[in-house]
């Protein structure tokens, strides 16, 4: 299908972009990599009056070291993130999950920020951002604000961004020594979305798990932190048994959807099994 008509603006700077968003009103949308938005336009599931294409604002693509955090520009492409030395050194969980997103051609255009702003609960990166306690930086003509990942994913495909706000960067605290991480994605075919995914980071000290952060993909209308798993495993000695018992708590407080890829019961089962596997893999530091 051909999409409905819309106006198109291509600002050259962040300031121009936020003014364009303010001028365009409620029914404007940011165009990032377009890998989710273009199909939605074509299926006429989205009817924006205007698109603000931020694809030419180079500063939004920067990935830089901020001491105890890595700041990833919202427009850094999946392709760029995957190969970035800072991401690979300090946040291998992001690189590992990004490698499972779609396929090379989609990764050449799709962006880290776009994946988060899109807030698709089946997307792989929202759960990763949640597990890593990322902070999302948003700008509008009204100023800049920082939104913790825990407050960013509001509902199905709905983020905390206001219509006039541009996500500019994501600040992700580095995982220091002793941390291990793993993203376990379960999908039926190559290039498919996760039926369930588990993002997990743990800090091991003297044979025990001192810190654990676990977040789930596609176990509800938004990504969820598996707090019960974290509480269970923290302070315990590393063992197969401990990970299995921890995994058994994975579905607590979730609202898994039922669709043609699996029933809520099946997803509940997957969450438990995959959490056990992800913990085991992450702890193998």
């Amino acid at each position, binding site marked *: 299908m051909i*999409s409905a*008509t819309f106006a*198109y603006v291509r600002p050259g700077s962040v300031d121009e972009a936020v003014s364009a968003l303010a001028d365009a009103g409620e029914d404007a949308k940011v*165009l990032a990599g377009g890998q989710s938005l273009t*199909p939605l336009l074509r299926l006429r599931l989205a009817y924006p009056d205007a*698109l603000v294409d931020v694809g030419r604002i180079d500063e939004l693509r920067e990935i830089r070291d901020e001491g105890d955090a890595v700041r990833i520009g919202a427009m850094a492409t999946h392709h760029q993130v995957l190969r970035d030395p800072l991401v690979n050194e300090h946040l291998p969980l992001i690189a590992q999950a990004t490698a499972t997103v779609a396929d*090379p*051609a989609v990764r050449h*255009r799709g962006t880290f920020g776009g994946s988060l702003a899109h807030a698709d609960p089946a997307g792989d990166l929202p759960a990763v951002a949640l597990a890593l306690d990322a902070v999302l930086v948003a700008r509008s003509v009204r100023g800049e604000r920082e939104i913790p990942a825990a407050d960013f994913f509001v509902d199905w495909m709905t983020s905390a961004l206001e219509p006039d706000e541009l996500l500019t960067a994501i600040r992700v605290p580095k995982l220091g020594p002793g941390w291990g991480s793993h993203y376990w994605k379960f999908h039926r075919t*190559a290039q498919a979305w996760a039926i369930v995914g588990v993002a997990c980071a743990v800090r091991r000290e003297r044979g025990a798990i001192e810190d654990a952060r676990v977040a789930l993909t596609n176990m509800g209308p938004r990504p969820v932190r598996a707090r019960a798993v974290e509480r269970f495993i923290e302070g315990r000695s590393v063992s197969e048994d401990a990970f299995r018992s921890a995994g058994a708590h994975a579905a607590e407080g979730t609202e898994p959807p039922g669709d043609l890829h699996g029933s809520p019961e099946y997803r509940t089962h997957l969450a438990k099994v995959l959490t056990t596997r992800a913990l085991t893999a992450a702890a193998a530091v």
Partner: protein
Amino acid sequence: MPPIRVEVDGATYEDDVEPRLLLVHYLRDRLGKVGTPVGCDTGNCGACTVLMDGLSVKSCSVLAVQADGHDVTTVEGLGAGGAEHPMQRAFHEEHALQCGYCTPGMIMASIDLLRENADPSEAEIRDGLEGNLCRCTGYQNIVRAVRRAAGEMRRPAEERATAEEREATP
């Protein structure tokens, strides 16, 4: 309508386009480059894959206005002076197509794959082509063709030229 200027297969085009026009429709309907087909409506099948500044993209998921100022290569721009690109020749020789619908996208994605990895294993080829669906071949011969092209493209140019000369002499 916004003006765009794009380089496609070595020629520069300047046009005014509607913002909603997709790159694939610009290529096919405005430039007549029908070598790039459309297979799906959702960015899934990869039939429409072209290179933008050397990187593979699905041209059904790029607006023509987004291609403004960029360099696009379609399957029609491969090969110099009528000669086939080694990837095209390998697809031909390994019988890597049946209906041919996926082939232009498959060839462009394969060229992109070799840009990053000159000597991919079978598993790496399957992984690198995960965004391109083929409903006919079962992929075996496609993998073989990419392996063959990779070998071909790693050979130094002079050696390749001599081999081609030899093949051309009756």
